[in-house]
């Protein structure tokens, strides 16, 4: 395969890279006067990049750059979700950034850079490109966390994320070097081939470090400590972005590494993932109960949800991988919708972030109250909302893979987590009203919240059947 072929297949990534550099130059030369226009242009870039992913060369299956980068059904599915999630995050931010006076043109550019990193992550089939994709994504996220640099909490979030992220990168790199040392290969298929004959003790040691690093990136327990502080401290649209696309990319990468590089030693890594999954679900369920800040609540909720998604990875089957993709796609819609509602919690004096601020919302703003209720019921996994189907498929995958105790733990954790979601819903519908929120929160925030609510309610007829079909094809690509 010539270098030109490689370039044609990697067209979406190359296009994003060149476009963001042009936008950066435009922003710098116009002294940042056109921040809003650059935001819209970035959404345009992501929309254009979707075209080759869906219909162009990137939609075909190929191994490129000496096995470092692959375009296949799995990468295609992931990229569609990631680009959409990133574009929605840019849409959500506009009004907030202007109100907080941090509407700098670098914001959409950094989102594009981290989207590029995620795009490379989900396509990577080599330990080096895996690491570099993760670094490109995470470095952009560290900067985004500290984006409101005059706020102490935002800079603290950025610093904390950076230091712990650097540590997790060290773990990941150390694991990758051990794996390379024991198999003599960095590409996933070569590692899988060498895994049959290699010394499994050394390989597992490397694998444990690799899993630790990846678990940190998707904020699974016991590597979740950074999540609540970073979620709380970062500007809310940035938190919405953190909770959506990077989580999807991390989980997709997790699934790809496990089933493509280590299929022969599944008996060794399955118990590790089961433990991580159970711990995440438990910590997500129990720690969220005492939270008073809605962003921290969402952080613990996301830790718990990562636990459910890891159930599908732990299954290690095609069904498991497809259930992870379905779960993460539905979670992405739910979480972006919930954060759109949280962005609507604004009083004239600033953002309202406490759960008590939601009291009696049903009387002051019934529409917002209804949307919150739908999202929380969906996050809980109540049928017929879309969130139920997300959980249904991962539970089925875990049961079919014989992980009964994992499914039982998941069911118990769901029951506990229902408690704190219900507590918020009761506050919204029963308690005495708190002061009213500012209604001017931007058209795009309202539109996204409404659209996501609609998708949750009619998901059973629309997105769920659609996603199951595509996710099955996508997961099949990893087991060819």
């Amino acid at each position, binding site marked *: 395969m010539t270098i030109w072929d490689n370039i044609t297949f*990697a067209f979406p990534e190359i296009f994003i890279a060149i476009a963001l550099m042009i936008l950066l130059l435009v922003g710098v030369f116009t002294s940042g006067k056109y921040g809003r226009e650059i935001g819209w242009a970035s959404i345009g870039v992501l929309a254009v990049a979707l075209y080759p992913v869906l219909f162009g060369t990137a939609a075909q299956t190929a191994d490129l750059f000496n096995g470092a980068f692959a375009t296949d059904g799995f990468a295609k599915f992931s990229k569609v979700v990631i680009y959409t999630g990133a574009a929605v995050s840019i849409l959500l931010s506009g009004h907030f950034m202007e109100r907080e006076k941090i509407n700098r043109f670098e914001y959409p550019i950094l989102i594009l850079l981290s989207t590029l990193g995620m795009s490379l992550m989900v396509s990577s089939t080599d330990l080096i490109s895996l690491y*570099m994709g993760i670094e490109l994504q995470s470095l952009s996220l560290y900067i985004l966390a500290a984006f409101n640099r005059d706020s102490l909490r935002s800079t603290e979030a950025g610093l904390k994320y950076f230091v712990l992220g650097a540590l997790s990168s060290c773990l990941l790199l150390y694991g990758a070097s051990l794996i390379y040392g024991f*198999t003599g290969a960095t590409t996933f298929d070569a590692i899988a081939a060498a895994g049959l004959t290699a010394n499994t003790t050394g390989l597992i040691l490397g694998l444990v470090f690799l899993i630790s690093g990846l678990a940190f990136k998707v904020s699974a327990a016991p590597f979740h400590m950074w999540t609540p502080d970073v979620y709380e401290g970062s500007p809310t649209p940035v938190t919405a972005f953190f909770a959506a696309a990077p989580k999807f990319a991390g989980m997709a990468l997790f699934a790809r590494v496990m089933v493509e590089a280590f299929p022969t030693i599944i008996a060794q890594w399955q118990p590790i993932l089961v433990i991580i999954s159970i711990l995440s679900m438990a910590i997500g369920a129990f720690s969220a109960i005492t939270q008073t800040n809605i962003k921290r609540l969402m952080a613990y909720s996301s830790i718990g949800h990562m636990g459910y998604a890891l159930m599908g990875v732990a299954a290690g089957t095609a069904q498991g991988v497809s259930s992870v993709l379905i779960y993460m796609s539905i979670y992405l819609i739910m979480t972006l919708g919930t954060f759109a509602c949280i962005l609507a919690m604004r009083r004239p004096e600033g953002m309202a972030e406490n759960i008590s601020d939601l009291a009696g919302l049903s009387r002051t703003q019934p529409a917002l109250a209804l949307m919150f209720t739908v999202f929380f019921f969906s996050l809980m996994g109540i049928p017929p909302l879309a969130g139920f189907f997300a959980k249904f498929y991962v539970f089925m995958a875990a049961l079919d893979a014989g992980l009964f105790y994992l499914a039982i733990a998941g069911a118990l954790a769901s029951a506990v987590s229902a408690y704190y979601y219900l507590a918020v819903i009761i506050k919204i519908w029963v308690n005495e009203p708190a002061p009213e929120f500012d209604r001017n929160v931007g058209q795009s925030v309202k539109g996204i919240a409404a659209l996501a609510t609609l998708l949750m309610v009619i998901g059973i007829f629309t997105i769920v059947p659609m996603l199951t079909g595509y996710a099955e094809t996508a997961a099949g690509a990893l087991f060819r």
Partner: protein
Amino acid sequence: MTFASLAFYVFAGATIGAGLGVILARNPVHSVLFLITAFISVAGLFVLMGAEYLAMLLVVVYVGAVAVLFLFVVMMLDVDFEELKKGFADYIPLAVILGVVLIVEIGFTVAAWRFTDSAELARQHPSPTAGQVVTDPTGPNNVESLGLILYTDYIHFFQIAGMILLVAMIGAILLTFRERVGIRKQDVTSQVGRKRAEGVEVVSVPTGKGIQG
């Protein structure tokens, strides 16, 4: 014992000794100096392995840039390390337990140490062309083989590394750069475009009266 193996033991010993010095030295400035010694010793080891380009790179990048940066940070930030170390001794029992557990675990791994044939092969020839240096003295040298692999087989990684550096640059500027107001900037165009009439005033001075007004 040949000279090469003697040199190996000297460099290896110096690396380990300096490494210990980094963590044992009380004064952080001394730690950084030990770190530089360790880097230079490792560079010597690289030369012995026939990787002279990597050796020079290590000296230039790590000693020349990174270590000096460390030195700047340590000397200019004036961190009170004694203050940081306070209360450290309280955790020693826990640290000993964790250390013992880790050593036992590593011991188990080392006891079961066995490499695949492909790993053995890959270690002898880190890059396909670098292997030729040993057997064929007329083959590509260090820099050439590195360049051959970096800009062809590894072009993908090379490009991503470029994007990562771009992110680092954007981040550094975004988080630290502040537009200062009220400073006078030099404007070359207006300086050059200045006419004589704007800058010089010709006054005819009557004798014995001086300049008035």
